[in-house]
């Protein structure tokens, strides 16, 4: 319980939403992920095998809509930018490790807890592996991981590279990414174990 208490105290001490709001954002986040079934091995590893495209379709649509909405929210003073810096080696080495793990695990750090909540024991074991990963990263951060990440090349964004045309760049980006999400051919890899729970007429694979 001590662990939760220190976590809650830290969150309460900072002005980034009340404990209740953050928890609620989490509930909705987990609910959307679970209800769309993108936490499933068959969706994420299925995408790695190119047998399912629901995950990229949903991700690209989310980015497309959010990019346009967020830009105008920042313009209106309703939000701020929180850009992550370019650290080239960290991004490339990290991206390779992350992508390869995602294909094998069939989960990512956000969908993992949702899968555990659904009763997936293998994902719980993977989460314990993740905790050890976090431990190793913390222990060897200064000596090994930080130098590996490379120098900080700054918080660069795409519109910055086209000074004077920021709005246009955001609009083109948002619309293009949204179109990509629609144009990616829809392929689905269903899990028989889930489908067998449903009555025949409700099965999405029988339409």
């Amino acid at each position, binding site marked *: 319980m001590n662990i939760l208490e*220190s976590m*809650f105290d*830290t*969150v309460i001490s900072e*002005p980034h939403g009340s404990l209740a709001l953050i928890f*609620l*954002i*989490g*509930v*909705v*986040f*987990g*609910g*959307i992920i*679970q*209800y*769309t079934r993108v936490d499933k*091995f068959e969706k994420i590893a*299925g995408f*790695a*095998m190119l047998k399912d495209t629901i995950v990229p*379709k*949903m991700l690209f*649509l989310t*980015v497309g*809509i*959010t990019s346009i909405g967020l830009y105008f929210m920042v313009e209106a003073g309703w*939000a*701020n930018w*929180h*850009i992550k810096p*370019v650290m080239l080696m*960290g991004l*490339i080495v*990290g*991206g390779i490790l*992350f*992508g390869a*793990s*995602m294909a094998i695990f069939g989960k*990512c*750090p956000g969908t993992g*807890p949702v899968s555990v*909540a659904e009763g*997936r024991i*293998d994902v719980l*074991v*993977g989460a314990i592996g993740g*905790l*050890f990963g976090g431990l*190793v990263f*913390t222990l060897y951060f200064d000596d090994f991981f930080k130098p590996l990440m490379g120098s900080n090349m700054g918080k*660069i964004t*795409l*519109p910055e590279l086209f000074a004077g045309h920021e709005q246009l*760049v955001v609009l083109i980006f948002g619309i293009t990414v949204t179109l990509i999400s629609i144009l990616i051919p829809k392929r689905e*890899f269903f*899990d028989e*174990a*889930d489908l067998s729970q449903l009555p025949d007429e409700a099965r999405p694979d029988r339409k």
Partner: protein
Amino acid sequence: MINRLPWWMGGILLSGLLLLTFSVYGADRPLGASTYVPYMAGLIFDLDPEKYSYLKSIKFAGAWEGVLLIGAFVGGFITSVFITKSFRFSIIPTGWKKYKNNSVLSRLIWSFISGFMMIIGARLAGGCTSGHFMSGMSQLAISSMIFGTVVMLALVVTGRLFYNAKETES
């Protein structure tokens, strides 16, 4: 009640949630989901945050995401029990049985290894599917576009090499 939401509905709802999280009336920060892991590791293994520079730097983000993920756990549990009715205890995913093997030991060992590598990778890059791909690309950040491209490539290449997906093509 339909047993699952279509992808476009999921995308629209997630955008709304991201915008709320970003907004000054919400949390005024991006939605991320990988910093909580080293944060939890620090608490569980009882590391002194004053001694480890990394723990010090992630103290707030880690706690924030910790609360978020407790919420996600609760949300996922509720929908899996009451809506999708997919709650059940299982060890080997159907897709793993079909395209990899039937061994519990193999699945658990690979889960542990990939969970371990995944967190090292996410922390090296400074984000994951949520923090980089969704929150970062929505801000048109170059860092997130590089990460997204590398992840997609590594994902598909690994999927091709790791599974026997071709032989059992139906």
